[in-house]
């Protein structure tokens, strides 16, 4: 790893460590960004392997390959790894690489803390993954860790709790760093309303992280004391309530899903204007919509619990607030479409993934809207319809935006153009297979197939088989991405500074690859035009 990546930092001034120690002790935002992105890629493949096991088992009805306990472990670990190990670190990786360059700063505000927030992750995930080999198996009660079921976890239980604490510390530290960087390190002339939207969406993500992750920490701490120290938070026999866990968890959990998607909004808002060769439509409405989504995300949590038996007033309140989120989300989609309206678009891979995002994320938004309607959710809750919903927003949403961003900035990071033909193959294979994979799950859910069960009734067989074939296709297509990345790091057509014709923003004024320390001199205030306006 260190070998491959050291090549293209030809400027070795400063006395930073070399070899493996460079990566272990680095305080440089680009090094740390690279570490985050590589870590996330590894986690994608570990989590992806688990997904393959799940789809393999579901290929046909009946139990064929794995025992149910292990199946449940796979469902649980897949989610935990993809959320906390793949998508969140990927966003922090993007933030590390791009934010200092986008705002004209020399580095992140708190460089040592930055190193720490990355170097927690390998340890936290070693803890989590080690549970696969423990007596009683890995956690199998779902990523939502509902008691009392989760309290039946074997030796893995305290490892799960502490791993969550550990990753949480990493996320909070990372978020604090981003917020401090944006508020304190902007170059003169970079006013708040000139910030690229990726920066805006990340500050708001940072607020969400700082406010919600500690609540998760509190919730799992209560699980720990309930299991080992005799407390009765989630035991009705002692005056507590298992449903209370769900409230606390989802108070974190819903903001968390926006933590996963807001940076995606930012990236798409950078890519579409570039390839449409038009300024972004409605910049300030994008900023306000993001803020509104973030605010609303704290008062909708119980839409995950419509069926647990809440008072009617609660059901209504959470239904109304939930469907209200569709308004600012709609503003965003409208603005992206309006940006493309009457523009001269070209369809390089970043743009393809961004377009895929806009269309497919919107499908996920619509299914979310359906789920947000209480009486409807009574029918769909805990079925494959929910699984289809969150995979449309997370895979064709968050992950597609990650891919779009990776292709968009890879030439800047490595100094080489990636192979456009292979990348187009990657896009088309992904976009077709992912729909084969997840679209039929809507039908399965509407017909009543429950989630988190390794076996199913025969009437669900056909759609499951289709879905599994799509799954295999999607999994294999991602190997292409690794090939493209490795090829791009090792060589390829030399990238210009601007990379994309007419691209706006400070990052494109630096060389490709950029110097080790981004802006040792603040950029000329005249050159700060305000992103895509």
């Amino acid at each position, binding site marked *: 790893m260190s070998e491959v990546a050291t090549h293209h930092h030809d400027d070795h001034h400063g006395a930073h460590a070399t070899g493996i120690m460079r990566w272990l002790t680095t305080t440089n935002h680009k090094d740390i960004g690279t570490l985050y992105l590589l870590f996330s890629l590894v986690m994608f493949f570990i989590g992806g392997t688990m997904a393959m096991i799940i789809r393999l088992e579901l290929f046909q009805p009946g139990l064929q390959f794995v025992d149910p306990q292990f199946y449940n472990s796979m469902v649980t670990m897949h989610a935990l790894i993809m959320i906390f190990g793949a998508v969140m670190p990927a966003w922090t990786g993007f933030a590390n690489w791009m934010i200092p360059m986008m705002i004209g700063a020399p580095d992140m*505000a708190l460089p040592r*803390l930055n190193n720490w927030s990355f*170097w927690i992750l390998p340890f936290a995930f070693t*803890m989590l993954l080690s549970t696969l080999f423990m007596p009683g198996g890995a956690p199998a009660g779902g990523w939502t860790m509902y008691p009392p079921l989760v309290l039946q976890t074997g030796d893995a239980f305290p490892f799960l709790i502490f791993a969550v604490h550990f990753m949480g510390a990493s996320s909070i530290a990372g978020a604090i760093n981003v917020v*401090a960087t944006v508020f304190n390190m902007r170059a003169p002339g970079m006013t708040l309303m000139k910030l690229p939207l990726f920066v805006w969406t990340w500050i708001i993500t940072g607020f969400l992280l700082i406010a919600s992750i500690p609540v998760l920490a*509190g*919730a799992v701490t*209560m699980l720990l004391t309930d299991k080992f120290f005799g*407390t009765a938070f989630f035991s009705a026999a002692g005056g507590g309530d298992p449903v209370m866990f769900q409230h606390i968890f989802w108070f974190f959990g819903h903001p968390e899903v926006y933590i996963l998607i807001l940076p995606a909004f930012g990236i798409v808002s950078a890519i579409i204007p570039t390839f449409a060769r038009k300024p972004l439509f409605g910049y300030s409405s994008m900023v306000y919509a993001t803020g509104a989504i973030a605010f609303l995300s704290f008062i909708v949590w119980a839409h995950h619990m419509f069926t647990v038996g809440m008072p009617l007033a609660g059901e209504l309140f959470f239904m109304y607030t939930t469907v209200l989120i569709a308004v600012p989300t709609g503003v965003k989609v409208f603005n992206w479409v309006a940006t493309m309206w009457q523009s001269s678009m070209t369809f390089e891979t970043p743009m393809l993934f961004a377009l895929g995002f806009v269309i497919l994320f919107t499908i996920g938004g619509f299914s979310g809207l359906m789920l947000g309607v209480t009486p409807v959710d009574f029918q769909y809750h805990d079925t494959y319809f929910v699984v289809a919903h969150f995979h449309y927003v997370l895979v064709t949403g968050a992950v597609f935006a990650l891919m779009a961003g990776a292709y968009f900035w890879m030439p800047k990071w490595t100094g080489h153009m990636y192979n456009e033909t292979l990348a187009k193959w990657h896009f088309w294979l992904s976009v077709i297979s992912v729909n084969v994979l997840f679209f039929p799950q809507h039908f399965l859910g509407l017909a009543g197939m429950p989630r988190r069960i390794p076996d199913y009734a025969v009437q669900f067989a056909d759609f499951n088989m289709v879905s599994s074939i799509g799954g295999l296709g999607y999994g294999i297509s991602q190997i292409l991405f690794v090939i493209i990345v490795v090829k791009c790091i090792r060589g390829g057509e030399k990238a210009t500074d601007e990379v994309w014709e007419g691209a706006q923003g400070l990052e494109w004024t630096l060389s490709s690859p950029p110097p080790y320390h981004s802006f040792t001199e603040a950029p000329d205030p005249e050159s700060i035009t305000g992103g895509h306006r």
Partner: protein
Amino acid sequence: MSKSNITYSNADYYVPDSSRWPLIASVSIFAMFVGGATLLNGANIGPYVLSAGFILFVYMLFGWFGDVIAESEAGTYNGQVDVSFRMGMAWFIFSEVMFFAAFFGALYYARMYSIPWLGGAGSGGATNEFLWPEFASAWPLFNTPDSYGFTQFKEVIGAWGVPFWNTLILLTSGVTCTWAHWGLKIGSRKHLIAGLSVTVILGIIFVAMQAEEYRHAYHALGLTLNSGIYGATFFLLTGFHGFHVTMGTIMLATILARCIKGHFTHENHFGFEACAWYWHFVDVVWIGLFIFVYWV
């Protein structure tokens, strides 16, 4: 904060070349977690791994903060770095507020919903009748719905005994902390050191009284962690608070030692202020505890 109006040059922003402390921090916490988890699972090796991790952690704290203090004393940090530190600390304290919010939320939820419902209120009628018909909603909850497996207790800690005195102690310590800050600002080491010493002593007294209160609760009242939802919320809220007071006291004692050594000037003393903010934060949390845990 007028400092933020000044424009700094990017080249003057201090970016350390590299540091091994974060990695050591991760290793030590990893060891503590793994040791703690194996201990909870009943393995004999747990305590050794836990202790080794703790020792390494303390070593890391000295090393990491030692570097930062040395850099600060050497004048490496300009005003912009100072602002980064301030923002970092402020947001960290906010995250701590949200951590306590989870436990306060549990307290309110239990008092306002789960206990009344178990007692038959609202739509809980059937729950009450079929599960625990004898159960009556009450706070403090002396009798849990099911007495099996829970320690019943006779009495709770009243607000106007030790907790009241502790409130006065903590509020006074907030004042003495500000006294020390004032001393630092006017450049009077006498006031600074006196104010800070009193603050640290008050912190120690608070923790000692809290420990005595716990002993009393466990031995005389039968109120334990295992006493149903009352014991759970009582001990986790006051326990995490007490832990934070302990940390705050250690932090202030460190600052006191640094003041005695002659660190800090009247315009450059972020380390002092960070600890003072933290101290005021535990103060405010205590007010919440006093009102909602002990009093109403």
